[in-house]
């Protein structure tokens, strides 16, 4: 091959290289080489977190520039932001250091500000808002987890008993049954006798059936039993809903991150529960009917089992689960 041809090929090859570098540059940097006209603004924060040079500056999620450098300015951290020249930032806009993910990098988020205000000039300082640090949030979550645990602890002690207050619902029920065995037995015997008498066709049955007053009284008693049972069911349903919420985590915890109302709610329902069980302990009104209702007992037991499981789960994984839930919520 002659030299001229060789030179031509090398020249072509070199030009190809230059062209490719150019293409790469154009695609990757959107041709900033001919438009280096960007302006810088300064943002001062108490804590820049892990913000570093090269991180993005976003406005409504759109990249409008990048962090040029970070440095100390007096007692605060200062980030110099390079903003694309065609972007105007209103002078009342605020900047925050935001996280792009739990383990991801940081970026500077700039609010829109008020339209129509004069834009920030080159070198101007932008107003800033400190954002909560991830670590702080984590610490709060840890505290929350503890609170949750303690309130659930009292919830469970309401069910399972607290030796000082004389036991939980179950123990109280047990106690009631044991204490009143004689009377229950007597009642049963009486019933038996009545049945027997009816069976025997004694006069009493006619009297019972024909006496409207007695009949009405009997009906009223049955109604009373019914309403007591439904009341108890409602209570259990309430407890179930709270537990379900705790288990699903989302709603309750989402609220819990910001206020403690839910925790108070739980405490309140536990207080309600206690009142009820106290009432039962005092043997108020509906005692006989309550005891005779099997379904109530069964469903109360199932609920207790469920609550137990939920509590176990929380005890096992404690704050980690909480973090998991929060993490899920964040992503």
């Amino acid at each position, binding site marked *: 091959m002659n030299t001229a041809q060789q030179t031509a090929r090398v020249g072509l090859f070199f030009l190809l290289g230059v062209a490719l*570098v150019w293409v790469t540059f154009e695609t990757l940097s959107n041709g900033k080489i001919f438009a280096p006209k960007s302006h810088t603004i300064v943002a001062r924060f108490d804590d820049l977190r892990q913000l570093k040079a090269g991180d993005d500056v976003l406005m409504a999620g759109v990249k409008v520039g990048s962090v040029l450098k970070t440095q100390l300015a007096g007692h605060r951290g200062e980030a110099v932001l390079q903003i694309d020249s065609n972007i105007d930032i209103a002078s009342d806009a605020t900047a925050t250091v935001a996280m792009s993910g739990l383990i991801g990098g940081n970026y500077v988020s700039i609010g829109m500000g008020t339209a129509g205000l004069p834009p920030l000039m080159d070198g101007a300082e932008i107003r800033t808002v400190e954002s909560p640090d991830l670590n702080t949030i984590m610490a709060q979550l840890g505290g929350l987890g503890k609170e949750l645990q303690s309130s659930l602890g009292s919830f469970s002690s309401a069910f399972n008993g607290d030796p000082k207050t004389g036991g939980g619902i179950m123990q109280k029920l047990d106690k009631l049954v044991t204490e009143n065995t004689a009377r229950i037995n007597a009642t049963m015997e009486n019933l038996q006798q009545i049945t027997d008498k009816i069976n025997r066709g004694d006069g009493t049955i006619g009297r019972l059936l024909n006496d409207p007053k007695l009949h009405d009284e009997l009906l009223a008693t049955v109604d009373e039993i019914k309403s007591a049972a439904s009341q108890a069911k409602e209570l259990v349903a309430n407890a179930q809903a709270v537990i379900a919420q705790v288990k699903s985590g989302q709603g309750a915890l989402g609220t819990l991150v910001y206020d403690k109302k839910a925790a108070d709610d739980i405490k309140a329902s536990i207080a309600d529960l206690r009142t009820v069980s106290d009432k039962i302990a005092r043997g108020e009104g509906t005692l006989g009917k309550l005891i005779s209702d099997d379904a109530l007992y069964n469903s109360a037991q199932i609920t207790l089992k469920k609550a137990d499981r939920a509590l176990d789960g929380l005890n096992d994984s404690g704050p980690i689960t909480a973090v998991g839930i929060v993490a899920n919520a964040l992503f």
Partner: protein
Amino acid sequence: MKRIVSILEGVGSVVQLLVKSVSYAPTLPRQWARFVEQCYLIGYTTMPIVSILSFFIGTVLALEAGYSMEGFGAKEYIGSLVGLSMARELGPMMTSVLLAGRVGSAITAELASMTVYQEVDALTVMNIPAARMLVLPRLAAILVMMPVLTVIANIVGWFGGAVVARYVSFVGISSESYFAALRHYTKFKDVIYGMEKAEVFGFVVVLVCCNIGLSTRGGPREIGAAVTRGVVVSLILILVLDYFVTKVLM
């Protein structure tokens, strides 16, 4: 002990050769034809293999990334992974490895045979230093050609990745989202960074191979040994330098 001494000797003679060659830099315009010839040999003729290799490196990267990222739904990031690793590491690295194999061996063989057959002695007697006529044009050529080879490797590798991302069924992300991720995470400075690395590797490979070729002693059999040594030393140096250059440039 002997090994250490011989290594030190090698380092010393490389540095000497470098200083000598650089001191002849003003003669480069006069050696234009030689420079172009070396550019041709080092750059133009190496391009096809560099392209082929980087294409497949790009495809494998995309494939592996697709396979492992599928598990946690991060397939959209394949572009960024291929883009960054090609530009910052694999582009310059594989180009240099190929350079060591293809150009480094050729340089060593040529200079070793010139040394063994006394051509270098003849040059010395003619007062034409080997550093000026044989080494300088090669060093200049590698400096000019290496960025070109690297950028070709990068772009071809990126397209290789795009092909896999698009057409392999279990990866299956569109070229648009592949290149969007690539462009979002790969900055032009990453490409420049890769080129700087490549420049260092290429320069060292050529310099070391020249030195090994010129210090060959003995008969034709030594030519083969010199070529082996040139390639092995080049490869080791590329890997060792990679660490340090990466650290310095970080």
